[in-house]
Protein backbone atom coordinates (compact mmCIF):
# COMPACT_ATOMS: atom_id res chain seq x y z
CA UNK A 1 0.00 0.00 0.00
CA UNK A 2 1.17 3.51 -0.79
CA UNK A 3 0.56 6.17 1.85
CA UNK A 4 0.96 9.82 0.98
CA UNK A 5 0.63 12.41 3.71
CA UNK A 6 0.38 16.14 3.21
CA UNK A 7 -0.74 18.97 5.42
CA UNK A 8 -3.37 21.48 4.38
CA UNK A 9 -4.73 24.19 6.67
CA UNK A 10 -3.60 22.33 9.81
CA UNK A 11 -5.25 19.14 8.56
CA UNK A 12 -3.33 15.96 7.76
CA UNK A 13 -4.56 14.55 4.47
CA UNK A 14 -3.65 10.89 4.16
CA UNK A 15 -4.04 9.39 0.70
CA UNK A 16 -4.07 5.60 0.64
CA UNK A 17 -3.56 3.49 -2.46
CA UNK A 18 -4.09 -0.28 -2.32
CA UNK A 19 -5.80 -2.82 -0.11
CA UNK A 20 -5.96 -1.92 3.57
CA UNK A 21 -5.53 -5.36 5.08
CA UNK A 22 -3.64 -7.26 7.74
CA UNK A 23 0.13 -7.01 7.36
CA UNK A 24 2.34 -4.27 5.95
CA UNK A 25 -0.58 -2.05 4.89
CA UNK A 26 -2.23 -1.93 8.29
CA UNK A 27 1.17 -1.70 10.02
CA UNK A 28 2.21 1.27 7.87
CA UNK A 29 -1.03 3.13 8.42
CA UNK A 30 -0.83 2.47 12.16
CA UNK A 31 2.64 4.00 12.18
CA UNK A 32 1.44 6.99 10.19
CA UNK A 33 -1.43 7.60 12.61
CA UNK A 34 0.78 7.12 15.66
CA UNK A 35 3.20 9.71 14.28
CA UNK A 36 0.35 12.13 13.63
CA UNK A 37 -0.95 11.70 17.16
CA UNK A 38 2.57 12.04 18.54
CA UNK A 39 2.91 15.35 16.74
CA UNK A 40 -0.42 16.54 18.07
CA UNK A 41 -2.09 16.32 14.66
CA UNK A 42 -5.62 15.25 15.43
CA UNK A 43 -7.39 16.68 12.38
CA UNK A 44 -7.17 13.97 9.77
CA UNK A 45 -8.72 13.41 6.37
CA UNK A 46 -8.28 9.94 4.95
CA UNK A 47 -8.82 9.56 1.23
CA UNK A 48 -9.99 6.03 0.44
CA UNK A 49 -10.78 6.53 -3.25
CA UNK A 50 -8.09 4.06 -4.28
CA UNK A 51 -8.65 1.49 -1.56
CA UNK A 52 -10.45 -1.48 -3.11
CA UNK A 53 -10.53 -3.56 0.07
CA UNK A 54 -10.65 -2.85 3.80
CA UNK A 55 -10.45 -6.00 5.90
CA UNK A 56 -11.36 -6.41 9.56
CA UNK A 57 -7.82 -5.47 10.62
CA UNK A 58 -8.09 -2.23 8.66
CA UNK A 59 -11.52 -1.52 10.12
CA UNK A 60 -10.22 -2.19 13.62
CA UNK A 61 -7.36 0.24 13.06
CA UNK A 62 -9.63 2.97 11.72
CA UNK A 63 -12.16 2.79 14.57
CA UNK A 64 -9.47 2.48 17.24
CA UNK A 65 -7.72 5.63 16.06
CA UNK A 66 -11.02 7.39 15.51
CA UNK A 67 -11.80 6.82 19.18
CA UNK A 68 -8.30 7.90 20.31
CA UNK A 69 -8.33 11.04 18.19
CA UNK A 70 -11.85 12.02 19.20
CA UNK A 71 -10.79 11.74 22.83
CA UNK A 72 -8.26 14.46 22.03
CA UNK A 73 -10.82 16.69 20.38
CA UNK A 74 -9.93 15.76 16.82
CA UNK A 75 -11.52 13.63 14.13
CA UNK A 76 -10.81 11.29 11.23
CA UNK A 77 -12.96 12.15 8.24
CA UNK A 78 -13.19 10.05 5.11
CA UNK A 79 -12.93 11.47 1.59
CA UNK A 80 -14.15 9.68 -1.53
CA UNK A 81 -14.29 6.18 -0.02
CA UNK A 82 -14.48 3.52 -2.72
CA UNK A 83 -17.73 1.66 -3.27
CA UNK A 84 -16.33 -1.47 -1.66
CA UNK A 85 -14.87 0.39 1.31
CA UNK A 86 -18.28 1.92 1.98
CA UNK A 87 -20.00 -1.45 1.66
CA UNK A 88 -17.60 -3.06 4.10
CA UNK A 89 -17.79 -0.32 6.70
CA UNK A 90 -21.58 -0.38 6.47
CA UNK A 91 -21.70 -4.16 6.76
CA UNK A 92 -20.01 -4.13 10.15
CA UNK A 93 -21.91 -1.11 11.41
CA UNK A 94 -19.11 1.44 11.60
CA UNK A 95 -19.86 3.62 8.57
CA UNK A 96 -22.07 5.84 10.72
CA UNK A 97 -19.10 6.63 12.99
CA UNK A 98 -17.38 8.59 10.21
CA UNK A 99 -18.14 11.85 8.46
CA UNK A 100 -17.81 11.27 4.73
CA UNK A 101 -17.05 13.84 2.03
CA UNK A 102 -16.98 13.83 -1.76
CA UNK A 103 -13.45 15.19 -1.96
CA UNK A 104 -10.42 16.26 0.07
CA UNK A 105 -11.26 19.97 -0.12
CA UNK A 106 -14.69 19.56 1.41
CA UNK A 107 -13.32 17.33 4.15
CA UNK A 108 -10.50 19.77 4.98
CA UNK A 109 -12.85 22.77 4.98
CA UNK A 110 -15.21 20.98 7.36
CA UNK A 111 -12.56 21.33 10.07
CA UNK A 112 -12.61 25.13 9.79
Amino acid sequence: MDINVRKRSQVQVIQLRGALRMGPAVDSLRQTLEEALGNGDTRIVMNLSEVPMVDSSGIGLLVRFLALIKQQGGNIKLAQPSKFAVQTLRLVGVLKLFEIFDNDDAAVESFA
Partner: protein
Amino acid sequence: MPAEFSGGPENSALTELLDLSVPADSVAIAAVVDAISETLARLEVPEQKRFEVALAVQEALANAVVHGCGNDPSKQVRCQLKSDPQGRILISVADPGPGFSPDLVHDPKRRENVYADHGRGVYLIRQLMDEVHFERSGSEIRMWKY
Protein backbone atom coordinates in the same frame (compact mmCIF):
# COMPACT_ATOMS: atom_id res chain seq x y z
CA MET B 1 -19.47 -34.38 -4.45
CA PRO B 2 -16.26 -35.48 -2.76
CA ALA B 3 -16.79 -36.33 0.89
CA GLU B 4 -14.33 -33.61 1.91
CA PHE B 5 -16.79 -31.00 0.65
CA SER B 6 -19.95 -32.55 1.97
CA GLY B 7 -21.35 -29.23 3.24
CA GLY B 8 -23.08 -27.14 0.59
CA PRO B 9 -25.24 -27.50 -2.50
CA GLU B 10 -25.67 -30.95 -3.92
CA ASN B 11 -23.38 -31.37 -6.83
CA SER B 12 -21.29 -34.14 -8.22
CA ALA B 13 -18.96 -32.15 -10.47
CA LEU B 14 -16.65 -29.68 -8.81
CA THR B 15 -13.77 -28.27 -10.80
CA GLU B 16 -10.62 -27.49 -8.87
CA LEU B 17 -9.35 -24.03 -9.81
CA LEU B 18 -6.63 -23.48 -7.20
CA ASP B 19 -5.02 -25.46 -4.40
CA LEU B 20 -2.43 -23.37 -2.58
CA SER B 21 -0.48 -24.02 0.61
CA VAL B 22 1.46 -21.03 1.88
CA PRO B 23 3.39 -19.98 4.99
CA ALA B 24 1.27 -18.46 7.72
CA ASP B 25 2.15 -14.83 7.18
CA SER B 26 0.22 -11.80 6.01
CA VAL B 27 2.14 -11.23 2.78
CA ALA B 28 1.71 -14.84 1.66
CA ILE B 29 -2.03 -14.83 2.28
CA ALA B 30 -2.45 -11.53 0.43
CA ALA B 31 -0.92 -13.22 -2.60
CA VAL B 32 -3.45 -16.06 -2.27
CA VAL B 33 -6.33 -13.60 -2.12
CA ASP B 34 -5.02 -11.81 -5.19
CA ALA B 35 -4.58 -15.11 -7.04
CA ILE B 36 -8.19 -16.04 -6.29
CA SER B 37 -9.41 -12.63 -7.48
CA GLU B 38 -7.46 -12.98 -10.71
CA THR B 39 -8.78 -16.49 -11.28
CA LEU B 40 -12.37 -15.33 -10.79
CA ALA B 41 -11.77 -12.37 -13.11
CA ARG B 42 -10.54 -14.73 -15.82
CA LEU B 43 -13.76 -16.69 -15.36
CA GLU B 44 -15.67 -13.42 -15.85
CA VAL B 45 -17.18 -13.55 -12.39
CA PRO B 46 -18.86 -10.15 -11.80
CA GLU B 47 -16.86 -7.56 -9.87
CA GLN B 48 -19.26 -7.44 -6.91
CA LYS B 49 -19.09 -11.19 -6.42
CA ARG B 50 -15.30 -11.17 -6.79
CA PHE B 51 -15.02 -8.51 -4.14
CA GLU B 52 -17.23 -10.39 -1.69
CA VAL B 53 -15.35 -13.66 -2.20
CA ALA B 54 -11.94 -11.96 -1.94
CA LEU B 55 -12.78 -10.22 1.33
CA ALA B 56 -14.23 -13.41 2.82
CA VAL B 57 -11.08 -15.33 1.83
CA GLN B 58 -8.88 -12.57 3.26
CA GLU B 59 -10.72 -12.88 6.57
CA ALA B 60 -10.62 -16.67 6.62
CA LEU B 61 -6.90 -16.72 5.85
CA ALA B 62 -6.18 -14.01 8.42
CA ASN B 63 -7.99 -16.07 11.06
CA ALA B 64 -5.99 -19.12 10.04
CA VAL B 65 -2.70 -17.22 10.34
CA VAL B 66 -3.45 -15.48 13.63
CA HIS B 67 -5.56 -18.00 15.52
CA GLY B 68 -4.74 -21.27 13.77
CA CYS B 69 -0.99 -20.78 13.37
CA GLY B 70 -0.20 -18.21 16.07
CA ASN B 71 1.50 -16.02 13.45
CA ASP B 72 4.15 -18.70 13.02
CA PRO B 73 5.33 -18.63 9.38
CA SER B 74 6.87 -22.08 9.72
CA LYS B 75 3.28 -23.36 9.70
CA GLN B 76 1.18 -23.60 6.58
CA VAL B 77 -2.35 -22.69 5.65
CA ARG B 78 -4.12 -24.33 2.73
CA CYS B 79 -6.68 -22.69 0.48
CA GLN B 80 -8.68 -24.47 -2.20
CA LEU B 81 -10.92 -22.84 -4.79
CA LYS B 82 -13.47 -24.90 -6.71
CA SER B 83 -16.51 -24.21 -8.81
CA ASP B 84 -19.49 -26.19 -9.97
CA PRO B 85 -21.21 -26.16 -13.38
CA GLN B 86 -23.71 -23.57 -12.14
CA GLY B 87 -20.89 -21.14 -11.44
CA ARG B 88 -21.15 -21.50 -7.70
CA ILE B 89 -17.84 -21.08 -5.91
CA LEU B 90 -16.53 -23.19 -3.05
CA ILE B 91 -13.54 -22.12 -0.99
CA SER B 92 -11.94 -23.99 1.86
CA VAL B 93 -9.28 -22.65 4.20
CA ALA B 94 -7.54 -25.01 6.61
CA ASP B 95 -4.93 -24.50 9.29
CA PRO B 96 -3.11 -26.87 11.66
CA GLY B 97 -4.47 -25.25 14.82
CA PRO B 98 -6.88 -26.57 17.42
CA GLY B 99 -9.83 -24.67 15.97
CA PHE B 100 -12.31 -22.45 17.73
CA SER B 101 -16.01 -22.21 18.47
CA PRO B 102 -17.67 -19.94 15.91
CA ASP B 103 -20.72 -19.70 18.18
CA LEU B 104 -18.64 -17.66 20.64
CA VAL B 105 -18.05 -14.88 18.13
CA HIS B 106 -19.78 -11.71 19.28
CA ASP B 107 -21.88 -9.32 17.23
CA PRO B 108 -19.60 -6.44 16.17
CA LYS B 109 -22.60 -4.19 15.52
CA ARG B 110 -23.62 -4.11 19.15
CA ARG B 111 -23.01 -0.72 20.74
CA GLU B 112 -20.36 -2.02 23.15
CA ASN B 113 -18.36 -3.61 20.31
CA VAL B 114 -18.51 -0.92 17.67
CA TYR B 115 -15.14 0.63 18.59
CA ALA B 116 -13.40 -2.73 19.15
CA ASP B 117 -10.19 -3.19 17.18
CA HIS B 118 -10.88 -6.88 16.47
CA GLY B 119 -13.69 -9.42 16.25
CA ARG B 120 -15.26 -8.69 12.87
CA GLY B 121 -13.72 -11.38 10.65
CA VAL B 122 -16.16 -14.25 11.10
CA TYR B 123 -19.09 -11.85 11.07
CA LEU B 124 -17.92 -10.47 7.73
CA ILE B 125 -17.49 -13.95 6.27
CA ARG B 126 -21.02 -14.88 7.25
CA GLN B 127 -22.39 -11.69 5.73
CA LEU B 128 -20.45 -12.01 2.48
CA MET B 129 -20.90 -15.70 1.69
CA ASP B 130 -24.05 -17.72 1.06
CA GLU B 131 -23.10 -20.77 3.10
CA VAL B 132 -20.40 -21.11 5.75
CA HIS B 133 -19.43 -24.37 7.40
CA PHE B 134 -16.84 -24.85 10.12
CA GLU B 135 -15.21 -28.27 10.18
CA ARG B 136 -12.54 -30.01 12.25
CA SER B 137 -13.53 -28.05 15.39
CA GLY B 138 -13.24 -24.81 13.46
CA SER B 139 -9.76 -25.28 12.01
CA GLU B 140 -11.25 -25.56 8.54
CA ILE B 141 -13.83 -23.29 6.98
CA ARG B 142 -15.78 -24.08 3.82
CA MET B 143 -17.60 -21.24 2.17
CA TRP B 144 -20.00 -21.21 -0.77
CA LYS B 145 -20.79 -18.26 -2.98
CA TYR B 146 -23.70 -18.83 -5.32
